[in-house]
């Protein structure tokens, strides 16, 4: 089996639509929409958001499995943590597939993009966990924390509890990433710097035009959620409490907030 599988070699069944993130954005722009559907409310927002997360969980499962397979010389405990993450992510994928049915959608209704898998393209395990576990799963903490609040506003306990269950695991995955990034880079500051820079690139990729900040400072706009008109986040806030639980330091979070508020990389 090949190691370090490239972005465009990720296998999917034939009856499956895959579209590059660039083309996905273009499709939205062609319809007069914002390039990405972070917020505000759109007719399909909940379905599309849950679908994107579901595809992300499948790719996270594959990514953890790849981290296990790609680095046979990594410590045994690292491999055990990656194996555990494969198990967790497969469970998450199942949960989100059920949530999709719950909101009147199904896995495959929307195309899958390659943007998450593209974040796995590195040949150092320290960079790999920095990017995936700290970068992407850190973003997952932000997204899920917001989804829980959104479900609470809608009065929907099914979504609230299911996502809260998944968020607990994601916090563990981020902690695993923090642990292994530091452990693998012990005594090698240059390697640590590369890992941190790799993570920073991924954090910048998901800054949504430089509008992200903490929950307390996120602009609120009026939108329709679950049949009600409510004031809710205009973008995805950075979930400070969840990230602290996950092992991010105050300084790292502050750096992330500063970078997120000025980056227009998206």
């Amino acid at each position: 089996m090949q190691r370090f599988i490239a972005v465009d070699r990720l296998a999917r069944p034939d009856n499956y639509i895959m579209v590059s993130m660039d083309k996905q954005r273009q499709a939205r722009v062609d319809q007069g929409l914002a390039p990405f559907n972070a917020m505000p409310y759109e007719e399909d927002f909940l379905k599309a958001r849950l679908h994107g997360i579901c595809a992300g969980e499948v790719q996270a499962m594959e990514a953890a499995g790849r981290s296990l397979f790609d680095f046979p010389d990594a410590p045994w405990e690292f491999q055990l943590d990656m194996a555990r993450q494969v198990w967790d992510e497969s469970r998450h994928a199942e949960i989100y597939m059920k949530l999709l049915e719950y909101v009147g959608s199904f896995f495959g209704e929307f195309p899958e993009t390659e943007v998450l898998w593209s974040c796995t393209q590195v040949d150092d395990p320290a960079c790999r966990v920095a990017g995936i576990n700290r970068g992407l799963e850190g973003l997952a903490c932000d997204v899920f924390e917001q989804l829980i609040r959104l479900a609470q506003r809608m009065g929907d306990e099914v979504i609230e509890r299911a996502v809260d269950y998944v968020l607990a695991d994601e916090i563990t995955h981020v902690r695993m990433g923090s642990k292994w990034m530091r452990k693998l880079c012990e005594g090698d500051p240059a390697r640590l710097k590369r890992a941190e820079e790799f993570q920073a690139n991924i954090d910048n990729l998901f800054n949504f035009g430089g509008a992200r900040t903490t929950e307390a400072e996120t602009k609120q706009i009026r939108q329709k959620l679950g049949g009600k008109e409510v004031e809710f986040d205009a973008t995805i806030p950075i979930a400070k409490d969840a990230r602290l639980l996950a092992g991010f330091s105050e300084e790292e979070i502050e750096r992330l907030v500063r970078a997120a508020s000025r980056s227009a990389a998206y």
Partner: protein
Amino acid sequence: MPDLGNRANVMGPQPIAHRAEIPSEVIAAAQHILDLVARGDTAGMEALAIDRARADAVALAKASSGRDINDKDIAAIARTNKHYWIKARLGDASGAKPIVFQMRLGESDGRWMIWEAMNLTDTSPWTR
């Protein structure tokens, strides 16, 4: 908690919304495009494509040149809001690799037009 109605004979939460239907016009447009590509109708494909997709649409029609396509299949449909991605497969009896392509259909002035077209026969849609 949403009102789940009579739950005497069901288990677990029931859907809170319905699945979105794919408009029949989209399927009809896709089938028509499969026919055009199968018979190599470059003029037909050109007429159905928006400006920036014309070259790719015509190239798709040329891909079936010299082949007697007898099997046309819509393999998958997905959507981005109200634009539809269609993956299709065209095969013949020779045993040669089927032509696989993907296109995006969207309404323009009341017609379902091709906004993007990609020949996926020898590549992945994620190939840059």
